[in-house]
């Protein structure tokens, strides 16, 4: 992992029809052997970026370097990458074996080697013995495995995956997530996955680039993205979060004084100034009957509104006298139902640690 990055995206833009900026001056580096995710809402440019890596789109500006080579003039069929398509694109007129062998035939490998590698690839994706099947005799999950085997058998430097799990049902999707992580560890190939599903990205990737409106908002490991989001957009996009509009002024190195309605003035760690958002994750909020005395917390009175019970926790909305309620995920740690039942209208003190509070700019 100490070598040069396997993918370097330098100042890449893609403009459609002269004005629509699908990708807007993106800089990214993907390290060798990483499981990298491009995450964002639909239309954020993540798929365009992936297709530029595959060579199906040409950047309007900027440079794409894969494995040390500039890809500007390299056609898709000459790139050291292979792709798993969202629709799988398993050729319907070829058997599973023929599908997997297709790429090796194009490379004019000897037939003995093709046979061996196809069998290995099918074994790798747990489709051993199904080589003679036709795609229309297989389930969606199996077809996806064919697409994976077909791409991996070529031993690319990078495997590109375009929303690979979106067409699978929830259960299969979870199994496939683990499967992909296992595969990636087994083959050691760099994976770049595009997804709009944050849980998919968080559970699989080593690092995630969050994109919005063609721009990369933040690149970080899953924990970094969740615990220290760089902006309001990232915080809001990844997981649930409470955002309270506030103003902040800088008071010292990495320290700001924040003035928020109902909360008042607090000094917090952060760098954002001016109009900011105070942000706190619902699971970091606690509830008490009496006002907490700990000076390390922010406490506020709230009235119970809606409650959603999820078994292991309850998602409780507290009216704190602001426009929007504050939501808290309260762990249901006892089996005494009375203990954790929140009734609408009841008043509580809700509090969270200052250290868990984020000050986010736009």
């Amino acid at each position, binding site marked *: 992992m100490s070598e040069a990055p396997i993918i370097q995206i330098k100042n890449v833009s893609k403009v459609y029809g002269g004005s629509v900026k699908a990708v807007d001056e993106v800089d990214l580096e993907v390290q060798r052997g990483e499981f990298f995710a491009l995450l964002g809402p639909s239309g954020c440019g993540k798929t365009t970026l992936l297709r530029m890596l595959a060579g199906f789109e040409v950047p309007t500006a900027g440079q794409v370097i894969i494995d040390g080579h500039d890809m500007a003039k390299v056609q898709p*069929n000459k790139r050291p*990458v*292979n792709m798993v*398509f969202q629709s799988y*694109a398993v*050729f319907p007129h070829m058997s599973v074996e023929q599908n997997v062998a297709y790429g090796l035939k194009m490379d004019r490998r000897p037939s003995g080697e093709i046979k061996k590698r196809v069998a290995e690839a099918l074994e790798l994706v747990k489709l051993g013995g199904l080589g003679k099947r036709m795609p*229309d005799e297989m389930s969606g999950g199996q077809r996806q495995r064919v697409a994976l085997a077909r*791409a991996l058998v*070529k031993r690319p430097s990078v495997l590109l995956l375009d929303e690979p799990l979106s067409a699978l049902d929830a259960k299969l999707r979870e199994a496939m997530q683990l499967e992909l992580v296992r595969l990636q560890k087994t083959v050691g190939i760099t994976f770049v996955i595009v997804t709009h599903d944050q849980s998919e990205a968080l559970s699989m990737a080593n690092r995630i680039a969050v994109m919005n409106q063609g721009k990369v908002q933040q690149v970080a490991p899953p924990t970094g993205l969740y615990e220290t989001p760089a902006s309001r957009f990232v915080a809001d996009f990844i997981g649930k979060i409470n955002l309270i509009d506030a103003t902040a002024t800088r008071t010292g190195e990495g320290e700001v004084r924040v003035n928020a309605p109902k909360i008042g003035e607090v000094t917090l760690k952060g760098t954002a100034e001016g109009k900011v958002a105070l942000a706190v994750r619902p699971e970091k909020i606690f509830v008490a009957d009496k006002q907490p005395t700990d000076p390390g917390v922010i406490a506020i009175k709230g009235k119970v509104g809606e409650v959603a019970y999820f078994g292991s926790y309850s998602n409780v909305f507290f009216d704190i006298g602001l426009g929007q309620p504050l939501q808290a995920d309260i762990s249901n740690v006892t089996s005494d139902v009375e203990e954790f039942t929140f009734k609408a209208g009841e008043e509580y003190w809700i509090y969270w640690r200052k250290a868990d509070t984020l000050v986010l700019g736009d």
Partner: protein
Amino acid sequence: MENWKNSVRTFWTAIVPPTFWLVTFFIIPLSLIWLYSFSTKTGVVDITLDWNLQQYMRALEPVYLGIFWKSIWMAAATTFVCLVISFPVAIAIVFAKPTMRMWLLLLVILPFWTNLLIRTYALIAVLRTNGFVNWGLEWLVDHADWALSFIGLGDNMLIGPFTPLQLLYNNTAVVIGLVYVHLPFMVLPLYAALDRLDRSYLEASLDLGAGHTRTFFSIVVPLALPGIASGVVITFIPAMGSYLTPDLLGGTDSYMIANVIASQFKQANNWPFGAALSFLLMYATFFALALRAVLMRKEGRGDKR
């Protein structure tokens, strides 16, 4: 919505007009012709139905079989040329911008809206000895000669003088005419098949290292096979039975089977023999359709996702 089985009146209202139409204007006349083919001509206008096979025996004589064979050959050549021309055209339309696509399709269909006779005479104006093609060639030759005169090779030393090409009244002219007439029959089913083709198949093929030519023959052609089969059949069948094009553009040896049939019904006034020839043509058509059905069943897989 109410099931038609539950509403007898709806059922009959829907079924009677087309049935009437088919029976009156298709089945009855065709049956009459079919009966003629087993009849004998007994006078100038008298025909007796005596269930003999003489007319068919005569139709299978070498001279007529030769014309049948020639028709098949001409239709096959037409179909092949149409396929070769149509594939790039259909691909270009599929990959054109959606707004352009409509106009391009319109351009393909446009000749349909002009009378066949007018189109054929227009083609004569293009192909005849003092037609547009020969004019253009003459202009080219003259100017090439003029240009060569600057390096001292003028005055027809290298090329020319121009002799007009004989483009009309031969088999080539007939095939050119048939290709011109039948091109839309090939372009449209090909377009439909290619339009349905998921682009990611093409991208997957490129991604796996295939060039554009390989992708075309390994992915596009097999997946478009149902469309190709449709195009081939609906080009071949009318081409085989064409009458006007060989009549106007062909020479004395360009007779196709429809011309023989017409002459039997008209000049020769031999309806039974004309009927037998017609039905032989029809059996050939049925054979082609059956062949397509078998092909489609075999390749039906390509249609599914």
